């Protein structure tokens, strides 16, 4: 178990200190993008397509422009004059900023109305007369690949069908041969539907161009302000927006979860509008815009798992169809078009695996946001964990026992997975044992047997997952060529107080506290004396931002190493002050002392003061350090989750009785914050498992585009979560930390799905796709009864 080296007052690693950032939020003084108000600021509202697929016959601006206060209506034709009507996506596809002839999904931006206030802009949007010629939309991704399907992207040179790319990893032939020779093979087509991040704050921007200084100041709901600034400069440099003239400030952010990584057309139009008009322009999405215009998941996975008859897993194969909507704008590292999907081999030791994926265009919104998971790990874990449970049921073995028999063993790390990752460390057996003990697994098994005998439906579901976070090593990970390192810059002031700046950007994860705790641990400066600053590209060091649970693995490591550089400089200063050789100086938290004479010492604060007042000859003054951290490998947190449910046969209602989550994220910086992240992730895990899913009709209309009908769990739907942890430090991370925030979102859905299907197993129900709603359960029960 990790023990605290520092006192609670210093607040280094392992202390559940309260958050430094809370006060402003509790007093209503947080500063979110929509709170920004600049003199002369204009408001922008989008006109959006009611059709999923249509030709634009005409756009009549006249009535809108006649409304007092409406200053401009910007169309695709207007942007085309500057070659800004299309933009590149993060994965080198192209996306419309505003269309010039065809709309490709419902609610696509058609034109923008700029007015003196939001109400007038809405009036203007109502008054724009757009004439459409609707066409038959393609909603089903399998149909999009049929030979007679119309070509959705004729604008792309060489594009002859709706297929975007094929990707594969592993050895197809050997995997097929292992499956063909196996005693037992279980198969399933698993669909993870479109869902939405639904952060409570929607996306937004305030763009303010100053013609005199030629500077573009942008307030943006962005998880990655530096990367976005670079991309903006690459796209719009030709009109004068070069990188040093652009300043992006990501202020307080009301939840991100991946949805605030991409560039949305509204951002680009607002920037263009401010550039052209010369006044600040604000655009804030409303909830429907937010819900309909971005998505995560939407993977159709054909899975095959092969094993011996007594349950030794031998091979796993998964073929996936990914519905990307009308463009591939998914957020993934450049070299991994399906992100980290190849973690789909899970926590188990076997030789043969093969994963392949084909992506396809349809008339849906672009997206593919890696929603609170490290680039498609959620899909990967759902596939393997459903299949392992299916195998257990097929051969009549306890699902926990089957897992124990197949786990990668503690002594096998670093473990080379069949699809190419090198897992850093883990003790999967200990994690599952702890979860089973905490929930009382054996007692529940007995209770289940009794209930089944009485004809009652009770289920126990397990998920044991391996996450892969911390993108990433620059040899493998980049976004449009920009290597995915991260950074920290520390300035210790003469009085021993500090300011530290980072390339990441918190959206509620508590960076202002945890980064200060890392520095407190390394330097001994109390965490309350360290101010943390992020999100302003004019002041923060370059970094790739906060997503994919990468802040602690990358920027946290950068902070530790920068602090160690500082500590080394401090050692020289301490030796100078104590008039001994540097070799005679030793360090304990917050203090340098002379070896063998601990009473001769200098505190870090005294050393900091000396750095500005009394330095050794030849030394550069000041007490600052910077580090850009390029990790040697990813980190691999893991977990074991167990869920107990009861299902009412008459209605299909599902009651989650217990849920225990044991996470191993390596060494822990702030246990309170880690627990909070796990709670939040679990609720975002029960959401897709039981409630959420974007529903389309055959014409491509979204049927649940507001929070009145898109069911984000409330406190009532969210169970009382029980959490715990094991600790296996990462061997290559400077702090032994791994990252945690996405583990629960990844681990919870299969645990819940496995529990519900386990409950329904006596009725012959062997699989249901999430969200597993009461009506879906009820229908499955009726079908199984009809068959019987």
């Amino acid at each position, binding site marked *: 178990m990790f023990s605290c080296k520092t006192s609670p007052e210093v607040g280094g690693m392992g202390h559940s200190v*309260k*958050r430094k*950032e*809370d*006060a*402003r*939020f*509790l*007093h*209503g*003084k*947080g*500063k*979110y993008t*929509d*709170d920004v*108000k600049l003199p002369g600021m204009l408001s922008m509202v989008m006109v959006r397509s009611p059709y999923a697929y249509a030709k634009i016959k005409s756009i009549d601006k006249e009535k809108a422009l006649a409304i007092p206060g409406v200053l401009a209506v910007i169309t695709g034709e207007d942007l085309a004059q500057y070659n800004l009507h299309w933009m590149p996506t993060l994965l080198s596809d192209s996306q419309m900023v505003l269309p010039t002839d065809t709309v490709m999904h419902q609610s696509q931006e058609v034109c923008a109305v700029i007015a003196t206030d*939001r*109400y007038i802009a809405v009036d203007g949007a109502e008054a724009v007369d757009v004439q459409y010629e609707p066409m038959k939309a393609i909603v089903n991704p399998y149909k999009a690949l049929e030979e007679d399907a119309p070509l959705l992207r004729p604008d792309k040179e060489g594009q002859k069908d709706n297929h975007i790319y094929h990707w594969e990893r592993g050895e197809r032939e050997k995997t097929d041969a292992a499956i063909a020779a196996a005693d037992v093979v279980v198969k399933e087509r698993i669909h993870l539907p479109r869902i939405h*991040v*639904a*952060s*409570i*704050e*929607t996306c937004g921007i305030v763009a303010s161009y100053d013609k005199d200084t030629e500077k573009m100041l942008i307030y943006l709901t962005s998880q990655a302000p530096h990367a976005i600034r670079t991309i903006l400069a690459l796209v719009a440099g030709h009109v004068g927006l070069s990188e040093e003239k652009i300043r992006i400030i990501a202020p*307080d*952010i*009301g*939840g991100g*979860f991946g949805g605030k990584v991409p560039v949305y057309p509204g951002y680009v139009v607002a920037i263009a509008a401010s550039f052209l008009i010369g006044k600040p322009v604000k655009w*804030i999405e*409303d*909830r*429907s815009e937010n819900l309909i215009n971005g998505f995560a998941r939407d993977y159709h996975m054909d899975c095959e798992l092969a094993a011996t008859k007594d349950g030794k897993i031998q091979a796993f194969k998964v073929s996936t169809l990914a519905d990307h909507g009308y463009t591939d704008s998914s957020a993934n590292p450049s070299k991994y078009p399906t992100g980290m999907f190849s973690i789909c081999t899970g926590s188990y030791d076997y030789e043969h695996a093969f994963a392949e994926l084909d992506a396809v265009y349809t008339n849906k919104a672009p997206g593919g946001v890696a929603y609170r998971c490290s680039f498609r790990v959620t899909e990967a874990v759902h596939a393997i964990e459903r299949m392992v449970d299916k195998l257990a049921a097929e051969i009549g073995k306890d699902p926990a026992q089957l897992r124990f028999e197949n786990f990668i063993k503690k002594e096998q790390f670093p473990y080379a997975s069949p699809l190419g990752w090198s897992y850093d460390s883990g003790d999967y057996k200990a994690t599952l044992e702890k979860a089973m003990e905490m929930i009382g697994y054996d007692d529940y098994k007995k209770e289940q047997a009794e209930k089944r005998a009485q004809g009652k439906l009770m289920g126990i579901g397990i998920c044991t997952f391996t996450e892969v976070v911390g993108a990433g090593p620059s040899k493998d990970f980049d976004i449009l060529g920009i290597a995915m390192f991260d950074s920290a810059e520390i300035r210790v002031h003469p009085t021993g107080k500090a300011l530290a700046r980072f390339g990441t950007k918190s*959206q*509620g*994860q*508590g960076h202002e506290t945890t980064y200060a705790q890392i520095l407190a641990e390394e330097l001994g400066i109390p965490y309350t004396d360290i101010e943390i600053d992020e999100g302003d590209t004019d002041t923060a060091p370059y970094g790739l931002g906060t997503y994919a649970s990468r802040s602690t693995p990358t920027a946290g490591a950068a902070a530790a190493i920068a602090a160690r550089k500082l500590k080394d400089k401090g050692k020289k200063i301490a030796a100078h002050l104590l008039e001994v050789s540097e070799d005679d100086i030793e360090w304990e938290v917050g203090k340098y002392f002379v070896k063998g004479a601990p009473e001769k010492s200098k505190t870090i604060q005294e050393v900091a003061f000396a750095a500005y007042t009394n330095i050794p000859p030849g030394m550069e003054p000041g007490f600052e350090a910077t580090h850009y951290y390029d990790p040697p490998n990813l980190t691999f947190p893991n977990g074991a989750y167990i869920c107990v449910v009861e299902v009412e046969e008459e209605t299909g209602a599902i009651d989650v009785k217990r849920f225990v989550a044991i996470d191993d994220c390596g060494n822990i910086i702030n246990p*309170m*914050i880690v*627990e*909070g*992240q*796990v*709670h*939040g*992730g*679990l*609720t*975002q895990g029960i959401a897709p498992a039981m409630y959420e899913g974007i529903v389309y009709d055959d014409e491509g209309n979204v049927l649940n585009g*507001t*929070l*009145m009908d898109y069911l*984000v769990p*409330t*406190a*009532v739907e*969210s169970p*009382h*979560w029980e959490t715990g942890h094991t600790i296996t430090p990462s061997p290559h991370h400077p702090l032994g930390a791994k990252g945690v925030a996405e583990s629960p979102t990844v681990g919870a859905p299969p645990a819940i799905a496995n529990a519900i299907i386990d409950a329904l197993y006596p009725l012959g129900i062997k699989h249901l796709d999430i969200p597993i709603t009461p009506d879906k359960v009820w229908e499955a029960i009726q079908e199984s009864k009809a068959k019987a």
Partner: protein
Amino acid sequence: MAKHNITMTINGESVSAEVDSRLLLVHFIRENLDMTGTHIGCDTSSCGACTILIDGKSVKSCTYLAVRADGANITTIEGIAADGTNHPLQKAFHDQHGLHCGFCTPGMIMRSIDLLETNPNPTEEEIRWGISGNLCRCTGYNNIVKSVQQAAEEMSKEKEATV
């Protein structure tokens, strides 16, 4: 657009303004009065980020016309820390880690003030139902429930002490 003169008390101060009949109360508070602690999350009264107190009762201000608040006594998140001392709910949300990004927090606290006014000693289930009109996407609610429980205890102790 018809204009209306309205007067109301916000956080103890009287304000008067001429407003359009269609102006929503949340916009009046955020944009006319520059009190941005009250947030907008959904526009459909579903998320509760805009919750304020009107004459002591919690109301979602994103679907409430400013003219309807003429003569009302309104409290927003900016008005509950009396003399710089945190309201017990503000303290409890901090103590129990009941907030992450902080966007839902003002609405959650304003709703909880009303909840504890009408039910000073709620069970966990009553708290969960009591805040079910307010969405939080970060915390998973466990710690929000604990925050409300802590505040309920402290407030009932305070009440006993003053009786």
